[in-house]
């Protein structure tokens, strides 16, 4: 860890991630509310958040179940949404400490948000490992607690949209994206990624547009 280029303190990292953590907490609570409403046992809802830690994938699986789909279809839908983590896993590997097994375990803390924060904190082409782990662990904690509270409280909670928290996610992504758009390659990758995602969205199941954007980003990087 000592060789890390941007060796930011844990406290600084937590402060940067705080607004995202609030949004993730509410996102987790709304997942808990909706999953229990779809007749999943409360313990399985919390267990899913603890073991999968991927909001979009969990909502996709829940959507299939709520629409009367089979368990296998639900698993497949959720897994499709996580395809992009293969690419982000490759991107963060060199920033993680330890051997293959430890890195594989630490890599479980990758989410869109923790990955983006680590890229923002790191050098070009080398995400900051400490930021990934601290942000990931922070968001994991609030995600699981949020799910638990949502599953227990259910309809008592209000609509998170009233607080604009659904807008916090795209605002977060655009705020991280903007400073990256310094080079010609980055601009090209961003435009192509957005276009590919938009082109695929009407015809493919959720998840494939993001996987397509990831492939195009890797393709156009140089």
């Amino acid at each position, binding site marked *: 860890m000592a060789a890390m280029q941007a060796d930011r303190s844990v406290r600084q990292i937590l402060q*940067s991630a*705080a607004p995202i953590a609030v*949004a993730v907490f509410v996102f987790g609570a709304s997942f808990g509310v909706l999953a229990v409403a779809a007749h999943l046992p409360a313990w*399985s809802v919390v*267990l*899913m958040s603890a073991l999968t*830690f*991927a909001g979009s994938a969990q909502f996709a699986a829940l959507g299939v*179940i709520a629409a009367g789909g089979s*368990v296998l279809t*639900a*698993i497949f839908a959720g*897994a499709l949404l*996580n*395809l992009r*983590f293969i*690419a982000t*896993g*490759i*991107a*963060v*590997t060199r920033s993680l400490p330890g051997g*293959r097994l430890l*890195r*594989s*375990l630490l*890599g479980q803390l990758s989410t*869109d948000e923790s*990955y983006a924060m680590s*890229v923002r904190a790191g050098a070009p082409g080398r995400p900051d490992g400490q930021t990934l782990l601290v942000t990931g662990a922070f968001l994991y904690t609030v995600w699981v607690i949020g799910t638990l509270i949502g599953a227990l409280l259910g309809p008592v909670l209000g609509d998170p949209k*009233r607080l*604009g928290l*659904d*807008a*916090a*996610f*795209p*605002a*977060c*992504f*655009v705020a*991280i*994206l*903007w*400073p990256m*758009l310094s080079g010609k390659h980055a601009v090209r990758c*961003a435009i*192509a*990624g*957005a276009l590919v*995602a*938009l082109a695929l*969205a009407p015809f493919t199941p959720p998840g494939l547009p*993001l996987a*397509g*954007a*990831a492939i195009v*980003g890797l*393709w156009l990087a*140089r």
Partner: protein
Amino acid sequence: MAGPVALALVIGLAALSFIMRATGPFLPNLPAAITERTSGLAPALLAALVAIQLTGSHGILHLDVKVPAVLVAAVLAALRLPFIVCVVAGALVAATLRAVFHL
């Protein structure tokens, strides 16, 4: 949903997610041709996430309060304001517009 079925769902989804997140870190030294390209991943993925969240599943700009929220966040980021300010301002814009216009 019965307990064992719910457990199968949870374990199945968790196992596939684990494998996908572990693939990159578990692979032994990948060729530089691949790792050098990962610098293009973040901008492409972030732009795609913004595009998808603003359009829903139809690939057409869905005009709701998230659009001005993202525009405000982008302008503040361009002005080099801190990350937290951009995110909170985006959420505030969305919340305010919803409250005022009952969207």
